Protein backbone atom coordinates (compact mmCIF):
# COMPACT_ATOMS: atom_id res chain seq x y z
CA UNK A 1 0.00 0.00 0.00
CA UNK A 2 1.32 3.45 -0.91
CA UNK A 3 2.25 5.77 1.94
CA UNK A 4 -0.42 8.48 2.31
CA UNK A 5 1.01 11.91 1.57
CA UNK A 6 1.05 14.40 4.45
CA UNK A 7 -0.53 17.80 4.06
CA UNK A 8 0.49 20.13 6.86
CA UNK A 9 -1.80 22.96 7.88
CA UNK A 10 -0.20 26.31 7.24
CA UNK A 11 -0.72 29.32 9.50
CA UNK A 12 -2.76 31.53 7.22
CA UNK A 13 -2.46 34.62 9.38
CA UNK A 14 1.32 34.53 9.75
CA UNK A 15 1.47 37.81 7.82
CA UNK A 16 -0.05 39.52 10.84
CA UNK A 17 3.05 38.72 12.84
CA UNK A 18 5.69 39.45 10.23
CA UNK A 19 8.93 40.54 11.88
CA UNK A 20 10.54 43.67 10.44
CA UNK A 21 14.24 44.40 10.98
CA UNK A 22 15.16 47.65 12.72
CA UNK A 23 16.78 49.29 9.68
CA UNK A 24 13.47 49.15 7.75
CA UNK A 25 12.24 52.37 9.29
CA UNK A 26 15.27 54.21 7.92
CA UNK A 27 15.04 52.61 4.50
CA UNK A 28 12.38 54.89 3.02
CA UNK A 29 14.06 58.05 4.23
CA UNK A 30 17.44 56.89 2.94
CA UNK A 31 16.06 56.20 -0.53
CA UNK A 32 14.40 59.62 -0.72
CA UNK A 33 17.58 61.37 0.41
CA UNK A 34 19.64 59.48 -2.17
CA UNK A 35 17.27 60.33 -5.02
CA UNK A 36 17.16 63.93 -3.88
CA UNK A 37 20.96 64.15 -3.83
CA UNK A 38 21.13 62.53 -7.25
CA UNK A 39 18.67 64.95 -8.79
CA UNK A 40 20.68 67.88 -7.43
CA UNK A 41 24.04 66.47 -8.52
CA UNK A 42 22.76 65.89 -12.02
CA UNK A 43 21.56 69.51 -11.96
CA UNK A 44 18.07 68.64 -13.08
CA UNK A 45 16.82 71.45 -10.89
CA UNK A 46 18.59 74.62 -9.91
CA UNK A 47 19.98 74.76 -6.36
CA UNK A 48 17.99 77.96 -5.95
CA UNK A 49 14.83 75.89 -5.93
CA UNK A 50 16.10 72.69 -4.36
CA UNK A 51 19.49 72.53 -2.66
CA UNK A 52 21.11 69.12 -2.18
CA UNK A 53 20.87 67.36 1.20
CA UNK A 54 24.65 67.46 1.62
CA UNK A 55 24.64 71.21 0.92
CA UNK A 56 21.92 71.70 3.55
CA UNK A 57 23.99 69.67 6.01
CA UNK A 58 27.20 71.66 5.52
CA UNK A 59 25.34 74.97 5.56
CA UNK A 60 23.59 73.85 8.74
CA UNK A 61 26.94 73.09 10.36
CA UNK A 62 28.25 76.51 9.37
CA UNK A 63 25.17 78.17 10.79
CA UNK A 64 25.72 76.35 14.06
CA UNK A 65 29.42 77.14 14.37
CA UNK A 66 29.53 80.63 12.87
CA UNK A 67 25.94 81.82 12.74
CA UNK A 68 23.09 82.09 15.18
CA UNK A 69 21.17 78.89 14.47
CA UNK A 70 21.45 77.73 18.05
CA UNK A 71 20.08 81.00 19.43
CA UNK A 72 17.14 80.73 17.06
CA UNK A 73 16.48 77.13 18.03
CA UNK A 74 16.81 78.08 21.69
CA UNK A 75 14.28 80.90 21.37
CA UNK A 76 11.81 78.63 19.62
CA UNK A 77 12.29 75.80 22.11
CA UNK A 78 11.68 78.17 25.00
CA UNK A 79 8.38 79.34 23.49
CA UNK A 80 7.10 75.94 22.47
CA UNK A 81 8.02 74.15 25.68
CA UNK A 82 6.50 76.84 27.87
CA UNK A 83 3.40 77.17 25.71
CA UNK A 84 2.95 73.42 25.52
CA UNK A 85 3.33 72.87 29.25
CA UNK A 86 0.94 75.71 30.02
CA UNK A 87 -1.72 74.60 27.53
CA UNK A 88 -1.40 70.93 28.45
CA UNK A 89 -1.62 71.39 32.21
CA UNK A 90 -4.56 73.78 32.06
CA UNK A 91 -6.20 71.53 29.47
CA UNK A 92 -5.83 68.42 31.63
CA UNK A 93 -7.08 70.20 34.75
CA UNK A 94 -10.15 71.65 33.04
CA UNK A 95 -10.80 68.42 31.14
CA UNK A 96 -10.82 66.49 34.43
CA UNK A 97 -13.22 68.99 35.96
CA UNK A 98 -15.55 68.87 32.94
CA UNK A 99 -15.61 65.09 33.01
CA UNK A 100 -16.01 64.73 36.75
CA UNK A 101 -18.45 67.44 37.81
CA UNK A 102 -21.89 67.62 36.21
CA UNK A 103 -22.02 71.34 36.93
CA UNK A 104 -18.69 72.06 35.30
CA UNK A 105 -19.79 69.96 32.34
CA UNK A 106 -23.08 71.77 31.90
CA UNK A 107 -21.47 75.20 32.11
CA UNK A 108 -18.10 74.55 30.51
CA UNK A 109 -18.63 72.17 27.61
CA UNK A 110 -20.69 74.56 25.43
CA UNK A 111 -17.95 77.17 25.88
CA UNK A 112 -15.20 74.73 24.99
CA UNK A 113 -17.00 73.36 21.95
CA UNK A 114 -17.91 76.78 20.58
CA UNK A 115 -14.32 78.02 20.83
CA UNK A 116 -12.77 74.73 19.72
CA UNK A 117 -13.65 75.10 16.05
CA UNK A 118 -12.06 78.54 15.64
CA UNK A 119 -8.78 78.06 13.78
CA UNK A 120 -6.37 79.42 16.36
CA UNK A 121 -4.20 80.97 13.70
CA UNK A 122 -7.00 83.44 13.00
CA UNK A 123 -6.64 84.76 16.54
CA UNK A 124 -2.98 85.57 16.08
CA UNK A 125 -3.42 89.20 14.93
CA UNK A 126 -5.85 89.79 17.77
CA UNK A 127 -3.47 88.37 20.33
CA UNK A 128 -0.61 90.46 18.97
CA UNK A 129 -2.90 93.47 19.26
CA UNK A 130 -3.68 92.61 22.87
CA UNK A 131 -0.35 91.38 24.12
CA UNK A 132 2.15 93.12 21.86
CA UNK A 133 5.07 91.42 20.15
CA UNK A 134 7.07 90.05 23.06
CA UNK A 135 7.25 86.45 24.23
CA UNK A 136 3.83 86.47 25.86
CA UNK A 137 1.64 86.46 22.70
CA UNK A 138 3.67 83.60 21.19
CA UNK A 139 3.44 81.48 24.30
CA UNK A 140 -0.25 82.31 24.60
CA UNK A 141 -1.16 81.29 21.07
CA UNK A 142 0.76 78.01 21.42
CA UNK A 143 -0.89 77.33 24.78
CA UNK A 144 -4.29 78.01 23.23
CA UNK A 145 -3.61 75.65 20.35
CA UNK A 146 -2.50 72.94 22.77
CA UNK A 147 -5.30 73.55 25.24
CA UNK A 148 -8.22 72.56 23.02
CA UNK A 149 -7.19 69.10 21.80
CA UNK A 150 -5.97 68.30 25.30
CA UNK A 151 -9.09 69.48 27.10
CA UNK A 152 -11.38 67.61 24.72
CA UNK A 153 -9.38 64.41 24.90
CA UNK A 154 -9.11 64.58 28.67
CA UNK A 155 -12.84 65.15 28.93
CA UNK A 156 -13.73 62.20 26.74
CA UNK A 157 -11.06 60.11 28.46
CA UNK A 158 -12.68 60.75 31.81
CA UNK A 159 -16.11 59.94 30.39
CA UNK A 160 -14.77 56.62 29.17
CA UNK A 161 -13.37 55.47 32.50
CA UNK A 162 -15.28 52.34 33.42
CA UNK A 163 -17.93 53.26 36.01
CA UNK A 164 -17.37 49.97 37.80
CA UNK A 165 -13.81 51.05 38.68
CA UNK A 166 -15.12 54.26 40.22
CA UNK A 167 -17.68 52.23 42.17
CA UNK A 168 -14.97 49.85 43.30
CA UNK A 169 -12.79 52.70 44.53
CA UNK A 170 -15.66 54.38 46.35
CA UNK A 171 -16.73 51.13 47.94
CA UNK A 172 -13.24 50.83 49.42
CA UNK A 173 -13.61 54.24 51.01
CA UNK A 174 -11.95 56.49 48.42
CA UNK A 175 -12.72 60.22 48.70
CA UNK A 176 -13.59 62.31 45.64
CA UNK A 177 -10.04 63.63 45.42
CA UNK A 178 -8.73 60.11 45.68
CA UNK A 179 -11.06 58.89 42.94
CA UNK A 180 -9.87 61.65 40.61
CA UNK A 181 -6.21 61.05 41.35
CA UNK A 182 -6.14 57.27 41.52
CA UNK A 183 -8.89 56.18 39.15
CA UNK A 184 -10.01 58.90 36.77
CA UNK A 185 -6.61 60.36 35.93
CA UNK A 186 -4.84 57.04 35.27
CA UNK A 187 -7.92 55.73 33.47
CA UNK A 188 -8.04 58.74 31.19
CA UNK A 189 -4.28 58.93 30.64
CA UNK A 190 -4.13 56.88 27.42
CA UNK A 191 -6.65 59.19 25.77
CA UNK A 192 -4.94 62.24 27.25
CA UNK A 193 -1.72 61.15 25.57
CA UNK A 194 -3.48 60.86 22.23
CA UNK A 195 -4.51 64.49 22.77
CA UNK A 196 -0.97 65.55 23.67
CA UNK A 197 0.40 64.01 20.48
CA UNK A 198 -2.22 65.75 18.42
CA UNK A 199 -1.38 69.00 20.17
CA UNK A 200 2.35 68.59 19.45
CA UNK A 201 1.70 69.11 15.74
CA UNK A 202 -0.55 72.10 16.32
CA UNK A 203 1.99 73.71 18.62
CA UNK A 204 4.73 73.59 15.97
CA UNK A 205 2.42 75.12 13.41
CA UNK A 206 1.45 77.97 15.71
CA UNK A 207 5.04 78.52 16.80
CA UNK A 208 6.18 79.10 13.23
CA UNK A 209 3.17 81.25 12.41
CA UNK A 210 3.68 83.42 15.47
CA UNK A 211 7.38 83.84 14.76
CA UNK A 212 6.73 84.75 11.16
CA UNK A 213 4.31 87.50 12.13
CA UNK A 214 6.37 89.22 14.75
CA UNK A 215 9.70 88.02 16.04
CA UNK A 216 13.36 88.86 15.73
CA UNK A 217 14.50 85.39 16.73
CA UNK A 218 13.25 81.90 16.28
CA UNK A 219 13.13 79.33 13.52
CA UNK A 220 9.98 80.79 12.02
CA UNK A 221 11.42 84.25 11.58
CA UNK A 222 14.66 82.71 10.34
CA UNK A 223 12.87 80.75 7.62
CA UNK A 224 10.93 83.79 6.54
CA UNK A 225 14.04 85.96 6.54
CA UNK A 226 16.07 83.61 4.34
CA UNK A 227 13.06 83.10 2.12
CA UNK A 228 12.90 86.82 1.46
CA UNK A 229 16.60 86.83 0.68
CA UNK A 230 16.21 83.77 -1.59
CA UNK A 231 18.85 81.94 0.41
CA UNK A 232 17.19 78.60 -0.20
CA UNK A 233 19.83 76.43 1.42
CA UNK A 234 19.62 78.32 4.68
CA UNK A 235 15.85 78.30 4.49
CA UNK A 236 15.95 74.52 4.08
CA UNK A 237 18.12 74.24 7.17
CA UNK A 238 15.28 75.85 9.10
CA UNK A 239 12.76 73.44 7.60
CA UNK A 240 14.93 70.44 8.47
CA UNK A 241 15.35 71.70 12.02
CA UNK A 242 11.56 71.99 12.30
CA UNK A 243 11.06 68.44 11.11
CA UNK A 244 13.67 67.21 13.60
CA UNK A 245 11.94 69.18 16.34
CA UNK A 246 8.66 67.50 15.49
CA UNK A 247 10.32 64.10 15.54
CA UNK A 248 11.95 64.82 18.87
CA UNK A 249 8.68 66.01 20.31
CA UNK A 250 6.85 62.91 19.19
CA UNK A 251 9.55 60.56 20.50
CA UNK A 252 9.67 62.40 23.80
CA UNK A 253 5.94 61.99 24.29
CA UNK A 254 6.16 58.35 23.27
CA UNK A 255 8.90 57.78 25.82
CA UNK A 256 6.89 59.49 28.54
CA UNK A 257 3.83 57.45 27.62
CA UNK A 258 5.75 54.20 27.91
CA UNK A 259 7.06 55.30 31.28
CA UNK A 260 3.68 56.35 32.64
CA UNK A 261 1.58 53.54 31.20
CA UNK A 262 3.50 50.36 31.92
CA UNK A 263 0.23 48.49 32.38
CA UNK A 264 -0.97 49.01 28.79
Amino acid sequence: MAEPSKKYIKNKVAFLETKVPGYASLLGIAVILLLWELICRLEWVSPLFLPAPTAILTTGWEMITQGDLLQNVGASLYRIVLGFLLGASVGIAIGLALGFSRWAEAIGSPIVYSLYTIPKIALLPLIVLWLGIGELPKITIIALGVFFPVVINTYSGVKNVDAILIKAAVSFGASHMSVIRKVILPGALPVIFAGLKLAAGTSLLLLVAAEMIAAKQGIGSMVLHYGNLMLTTKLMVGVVVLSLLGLLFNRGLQWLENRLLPWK
Partner: protein
Amino acid sequence: MRVVVDGVSKTFRDKKGKEVTALSQIDFAINKEEFVVLVGPSGCGKSTLLNIVGGLLSPTEGGVYFEGLSAKQDDPRLGIVFQEIALFPWRTVIDNIAFGLEEMGVGKKERLEKAKVYLDMVGLTGFEQAYPKQLSGGMRQRAGIARALAIEPDLLLMDEPFSALDAQTRTLMQEELLTIWSRTRLSTLYVTHNISEAVYLADRVVVLSRHPGRIKEIIPIDLPKAGRDSEEFRVPFDDYVKQIWNLIRQEAEDALKEG
Protein backbone atom coordinates in the same frame (compact mmCIF):
# COMPACT_ATOMS: atom_id res chain seq x y z
CA MET B 1 -23.14 42.57 65.03
CA ARG B 2 -25.99 42.13 62.60
CA VAL B 3 -26.78 43.62 59.23
CA VAL B 4 -30.47 44.32 58.80
CA VAL B 5 -32.15 44.81 55.44
CA ASP B 6 -35.28 46.65 56.48
CA GLY B 7 -38.22 46.96 54.11
CA VAL B 8 -36.11 47.68 51.05
CA SER B 9 -37.90 48.46 47.79
CA LYS B 10 -36.41 49.74 44.58
CA THR B 11 -38.22 51.12 41.58
CA PHE B 12 -36.32 52.07 38.45
CA ARG B 13 -37.71 54.60 36.03
CA ASP B 14 -36.46 54.29 32.50
CA LYS B 15 -36.07 57.15 30.01
CA LYS B 16 -39.64 56.85 28.78
CA GLY B 17 -40.88 57.17 32.33
CA LYS B 18 -41.90 53.53 32.55
CA GLU B 19 -41.46 52.15 36.05
CA VAL B 20 -39.88 48.79 36.85
CA THR B 21 -40.16 47.54 40.40
CA ALA B 22 -37.00 45.54 40.88
CA LEU B 23 -37.41 44.90 44.60
CA SER B 24 -40.42 45.02 46.85
CA GLN B 25 -40.37 44.94 50.65
CA ILE B 26 -37.22 42.94 51.27
CA ASP B 27 -36.68 42.08 54.94
CA PHE B 28 -33.93 39.84 56.27
CA ALA B 29 -30.80 39.99 58.37
CA ILE B 30 -27.26 38.71 58.12
CA ASN B 31 -25.93 37.60 61.48
CA LYS B 32 -22.39 37.72 62.77
CA GLU B 33 -20.23 35.15 61.00
CA GLU B 34 -23.10 34.11 58.80
CA PHE B 35 -22.85 33.28 55.10
CA VAL B 36 -26.09 34.26 53.37
CA VAL B 37 -26.58 33.41 49.69
CA LEU B 38 -29.09 35.13 47.43
CA VAL B 39 -30.46 33.05 44.59
CA GLY B 40 -33.22 33.72 42.12
CA PRO B 41 -34.01 33.80 38.41
CA SER B 42 -32.28 36.24 36.13
CA GLY B 43 -33.55 39.78 36.55
CA CYS B 44 -35.11 39.24 39.98
CA GLY B 45 -33.04 42.01 41.52
CA LYS B 46 -30.12 40.20 43.15
CA SER B 47 -27.51 42.65 41.93
CA THR B 48 -29.79 45.55 42.77
CA LEU B 49 -30.13 44.32 46.34
CA LEU B 50 -26.41 43.71 46.70
CA ASN B 51 -25.64 47.20 45.39
CA ILE B 52 -28.06 48.73 47.86
CA VAL B 53 -26.45 46.83 50.74
CA GLY B 54 -23.04 47.88 49.42
CA GLY B 55 -23.98 51.57 49.40
CA LEU B 56 -23.70 51.89 45.62
CA LEU B 57 -27.41 52.46 44.98
CA SER B 58 -30.17 54.20 46.95
CA PRO B 59 -33.30 52.22 47.78
CA THR B 60 -36.64 53.83 46.92
CA GLU B 61 -37.98 52.75 50.29
CA GLY B 62 -36.53 51.23 53.42
CA GLY B 63 -32.89 50.98 54.36
CA VAL B 64 -29.98 48.84 55.45
CA TYR B 65 -28.31 49.22 58.82
CA PHE B 66 -25.67 47.63 61.01
CA GLU B 67 -26.51 46.74 64.59
CA GLY B 68 -24.03 46.40 67.39
CA LEU B 69 -20.94 47.95 65.84
CA SER B 70 -18.54 49.43 68.38
CA ALA B 71 -19.39 53.06 69.05
CA LYS B 72 -15.92 54.25 68.03
CA GLN B 73 -16.29 53.02 64.51
CA ASP B 74 -18.08 55.57 62.34
CA ASP B 75 -18.83 53.71 59.13
CA PRO B 76 -19.14 49.97 58.74
CA ARG B 77 -16.45 48.61 56.46
CA LEU B 78 -17.63 46.85 53.34
CA GLY B 79 -15.56 44.59 51.14
CA ILE B 80 -17.10 44.09 47.72
CA VAL B 81 -16.06 41.49 45.16
CA PHE B 82 -17.47 42.55 41.83
CA GLN B 83 -18.76 40.29 39.10
CA GLU B 84 -16.75 42.37 36.63
CA ILE B 85 -13.76 41.95 38.99
CA ALA B 86 -12.95 45.67 38.61
CA LEU B 87 -9.26 45.52 39.43
CA PHE B 88 -7.44 48.74 38.59
CA PRO B 89 -5.52 47.92 35.39
CA TRP B 90 -2.79 50.46 36.20
CA ARG B 91 -1.98 48.96 39.59
CA THR B 92 0.07 45.86 40.22
CA VAL B 93 -1.61 42.98 42.01
CA ILE B 94 -0.15 43.88 45.37
CA ASP B 95 -1.13 47.55 44.97
CA ASN B 96 -4.64 46.52 43.99
CA ILE B 97 -4.95 44.40 47.11
CA ALA B 98 -3.57 47.24 49.23
CA PHE B 99 -5.98 49.82 47.75
CA GLY B 100 -8.57 49.75 50.54
CA LEU B 101 -5.89 49.92 53.23
CA GLU B 102 -4.34 52.89 51.41
CA GLU B 103 -7.66 54.71 51.51
CA MET B 104 -7.96 53.92 55.20
CA GLY B 105 -4.69 55.72 55.75
CA VAL B 106 -2.61 52.68 56.69
CA GLY B 107 1.14 53.35 56.29
CA LYS B 108 2.93 51.96 53.26
CA LYS B 109 4.99 49.31 55.01
CA GLU B 110 2.11 47.97 57.04
CA ARG B 111 -0.33 47.87 54.17
CA LEU B 112 2.08 46.03 51.92
CA GLU B 113 2.70 43.48 54.65
CA LYS B 114 -1.01 43.01 55.15
CA ALA B 115 -1.69 42.83 51.43
CA LYS B 116 0.98 40.16 51.16
CA VAL B 117 -0.78 38.02 53.77
CA TYR B 118 -3.99 38.04 51.74
CA LEU B 119 -2.12 37.64 48.47
CA ASP B 120 -0.64 34.44 49.88
CA MET B 121 -4.00 33.38 51.26
CA VAL B 122 -5.61 33.44 47.81
CA GLY B 123 -2.62 31.64 46.30
CA LEU B 124 -1.11 34.44 44.22
CA THR B 125 2.37 34.25 45.74
CA GLY B 126 4.92 35.40 43.19
CA PHE B 127 2.50 37.62 41.25
CA GLU B 128 2.89 40.72 43.44
CA GLN B 129 4.27 42.87 40.64
CA ALA B 130 2.11 41.55 37.81
CA TYR B 131 -0.54 43.77 36.22
CA PRO B 132 -4.13 42.46 36.05
CA LYS B 133 -3.82 42.08 32.28
CA GLN B 134 -1.11 39.47 32.80
CA LEU B 135 -3.33 37.24 34.97
CA SER B 136 -5.85 34.56 34.02
CA GLY B 137 -9.53 35.09 34.82
CA GLY B 138 -9.37 32.91 37.92
CA MET B 139 -6.27 34.67 39.20
CA ARG B 140 -7.87 38.06 38.68
CA GLN B 141 -10.89 37.04 40.69
CA ARG B 142 -8.59 35.80 43.46
CA ALA B 143 -6.92 39.20 43.51
CA GLY B 144 -10.38 40.79 43.71
CA ILE B 145 -11.23 38.61 46.68
CA ALA B 146 -7.93 39.42 48.39
CA ARG B 147 -8.60 43.14 47.88
CA ALA B 148 -11.95 42.80 49.64
CA LEU B 149 -10.55 40.64 52.46
CA ALA B 150 -7.55 42.89 53.08
CA ILE B 151 -9.62 45.64 54.70
CA GLU B 152 -11.04 43.08 57.16
CA PRO B 153 -14.58 44.16 56.36
CA ASP B 154 -17.57 44.01 58.67
CA LEU B 155 -19.52 42.63 55.74
CA LEU B 156 -18.24 40.87 52.65
CA LEU B 157 -20.36 41.25 49.50
CA MET B 158 -19.89 39.08 46.44
CA ASP B 159 -21.91 39.31 43.22
CA GLU B 160 -21.53 36.13 41.18
CA PRO B 161 -17.78 36.23 41.61
CA PHE B 162 -17.16 33.00 39.76
CA SER B 163 -19.70 33.21 36.97
CA ALA B 164 -17.08 34.10 34.36
CA LEU B 165 -14.89 31.12 35.23
CA ASP B 166 -14.85 27.67 33.65
CA ALA B 167 -16.44 24.81 35.57
CA GLN B 168 -13.21 23.30 36.91
CA THR B 169 -11.75 26.60 38.08
CA ARG B 170 -15.09 27.44 39.58
CA THR B 171 -15.20 24.26 41.67
CA LEU B 172 -11.67 24.87 42.92
CA MET B 173 -12.43 28.50 43.74
CA GLN B 174 -15.54 27.49 45.69
CA GLU B 175 -13.47 25.11 47.78
CA GLU B 176 -10.88 27.79 48.35
CA LEU B 177 -13.47 30.37 49.25
CA LEU B 178 -14.85 27.99 51.87
CA THR B 179 -11.38 27.44 53.32
CA ILE B 180 -10.70 31.17 53.43
CA TRP B 181 -14.09 31.85 54.90
CA SER B 182 -13.55 29.27 57.65
CA ARG B 183 -10.42 31.18 58.59
CA THR B 184 -11.86 34.69 58.47
CA ARG B 185 -15.51 33.92 59.32
CA LEU B 186 -16.71 37.20 57.85
CA SER B 187 -20.41 37.98 57.64
CA THR B 188 -21.07 37.50 53.95
CA LEU B 189 -23.78 38.21 51.40
CA TYR B 190 -23.20 36.21 48.26
CA VAL B 191 -25.14 36.28 45.00
CA THR B 192 -25.24 33.38 42.60
CA HIS B 193 -27.26 31.75 39.82
CA ASN B 194 -25.87 28.40 40.68
CA ILE B 195 -28.01 26.45 43.14
CA SER B 196 -25.45 23.80 44.13
CA GLU B 197 -22.98 26.59 44.77
CA ALA B 198 -25.55 28.19 47.06
CA VAL B 199 -26.14 24.95 49.00
CA TYR B 200 -22.40 24.29 49.15
CA LEU B 201 -21.51 27.69 50.65
CA ALA B 202 -24.53 28.98 52.55
CA ASP B 203 -25.66 29.01 56.14
CA ARG B 204 -28.94 30.32 54.79
CA VAL B 205 -30.23 30.66 51.25
CA VAL B 206 -32.56 33.54 50.43
CA VAL B 207 -34.69 32.69 47.41
CA LEU B 208 -36.02 35.69 45.48
CA SER B 209 -38.92 35.72 43.06
CA ARG B 210 -39.38 38.01 40.10
CA HIS B 211 -41.65 40.86 39.02
CA PRO B 212 -41.37 42.30 41.50
CA GLY B 213 -38.40 40.87 43.38
CA ARG B 214 -39.67 39.53 46.69
CA ILE B 215 -38.36 37.03 49.17
CA LYS B 216 -40.00 33.74 48.30
CA GLU B 217 -38.42 31.71 51.03
CA ILE B 218 -35.42 31.62 53.34
CA ILE B 219 -33.90 28.16 53.70
CA PRO B 220 -31.38 27.37 56.43
CA ILE B 221 -28.87 24.76 55.24
CA ASP B 222 -28.57 22.36 58.12
CA LEU B 223 -25.33 20.67 57.13
CA PRO B 224 -21.79 21.05 58.52
CA LYS B 225 -19.80 23.66 56.59
CA ALA B 226 -16.85 21.38 55.86
CA GLY B 227 -17.31 18.34 53.68
CA ARG B 228 -20.80 19.10 52.42
CA ASP B 229 -19.92 17.69 49.06
CA SER B 230 -18.83 14.35 50.53
CA GLU B 231 -20.74 11.13 49.88
CA GLU B 232 -22.09 11.15 53.43
CA PHE B 233 -24.29 14.19 52.80
CA ARG B 234 -25.16 13.56 49.18
CA VAL B 235 -28.81 12.83 49.79
CA PRO B 236 -29.67 15.86 51.97
CA PHE B 237 -27.49 18.05 49.72
CA ASP B 238 -29.43 17.00 46.65
CA ASP B 239 -32.72 17.48 48.50
CA TYR B 240 -31.80 21.09 49.22
CA VAL B 241 -30.87 21.64 45.61
CA LYS B 242 -34.15 20.13 44.46
CA GLN B 243 -36.16 22.17 46.93
CA ILE B 244 -34.61 25.44 45.78
CA TRP B 245 -34.81 24.51 42.14
CA ASN B 246 -38.52 23.80 42.46
CA LEU B 247 -39.00 27.25 43.99
CA ILE B 248 -37.21 28.93 41.13
CA ARG B 249 -38.12 26.73 38.20
CA GLN B 250 -41.42 28.22 37.10
CA GLU B 251 -40.09 31.74 37.14
CA ALA B 252 -36.83 30.84 35.50
CA GLU B 253 -38.86 29.36 32.64
CA ASP B 254 -40.94 32.53 32.42
CA ALA B 255 -37.78 34.61 32.40
CA LEU B 256 -36.44 32.53 29.54
CA LYS B 257 -39.59 33.01 27.47
CA GLU B 258 -39.45 36.76 27.96
CA GLY B 259 -35.85 36.68 26.80
